């Protein structure tokens, strides 16, 4: 279940399904509770390439409003580009923590809503 979530960006690259269709499939396990930040961080630490996958997923977006995750120098930024094209963002020093925050913001409402 956690693995499905963490490797979500890889699934996007490997299938011919839409992002929402993939969400439909992996949302089955999230009817009640989304993984905690600590669980996400633990999963991300187990495979460093996951950070790059999520960053690429964010870079490749071509639709707003939406969340984003990027590297700026030695820091990591998680933010939201809103409907007025204003960026609201926070800066993090730890890449795992930043990525976990992005995953939670990007995926929680989407998966819970889909499952509900």
């Amino acid at each position: 279940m956690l693995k499905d979530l963490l490797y979500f960006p890889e699934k996007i690259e490997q299938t011919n399904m839409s992002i929402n269709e993939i969400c439909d499939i992996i949302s089955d396990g999230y009817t009640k509770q989304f993984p905690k930040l600590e669980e996400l961080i633990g999963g991300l630490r187990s495979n460093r390439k996951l950070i790059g996958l999520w960053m690429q997923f964010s870079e490749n977006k071509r639709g707003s409003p939406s969340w984003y995750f990027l590297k700026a120098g030695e820091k990591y930024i998680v933010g939201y580009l809103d409907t007025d094209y204003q960026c609201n963002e926070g800066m993090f020093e730890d890449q795992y923590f930043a990525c976990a925050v992005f995953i939670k913001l990007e995926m929680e409402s989407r998966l819970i809503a889909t499952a509900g």
Partner: protein
Amino acid sequence: MFVDGAFSIVSGAAVGGFTCETGIGCLAAAGILSYGADTAGHGIVALWTGEQQTTFGAQLLMKTGLSQAQAEILYGLGAAGVELATLKYLVKSPALLTDDLLRSYKAEGSFLPSKIKDLSVLHITNSGETVLGHFPGYINKANLKGASFFDIGDAWNDLTPVQRWAANTHFLDAIASKGDIVKLSLTKGEINPNSYLAKEIEYLTGQKGYKWVNQWSLRPPSGY
């Protein structure tokens, strides 16, 4: 099938610009140009025997490692005049050549609903400049300059990869036809080679004749 073949003699010639960049492209080009006669002939055989045979064009594509079904789908799509960029994407991603894709293509006659086509050109301005980059930097820079940019909103999440790329190339075709200068929201050296941005630039330089001017921008071919 026989009528199909006769039609394809015309439409096959229309996609004769298929390049040999990938190697597979050469085979596809050769196959597509002769598609009409090929499928018409097989149509006759199929009518006579009741059995579907592999077209010659598909046999060529199968030599590149595609399965028979994949080769037939790709061969058929090429002859039906599907956009070159979409075809090249499919050649590089044979796993995407599914029966569902073919059915969807047959149902809609296109990979891209007209609503998405309209959305993809919604943010084209008359500034003469387009900004490309990674999300969200390119949108921020474009808005500051009043330049064109690609943003299809929530629809992005509803489209398959093939449809996403078709929407993207529809936008790139539009700004290229206007002769827009392309500015980047990051330097050439900062481009992630596996990113959508890299594909967009490859399309503009490979298919639309764009040239790098400096680390930040590309210009259209002379004549604009």
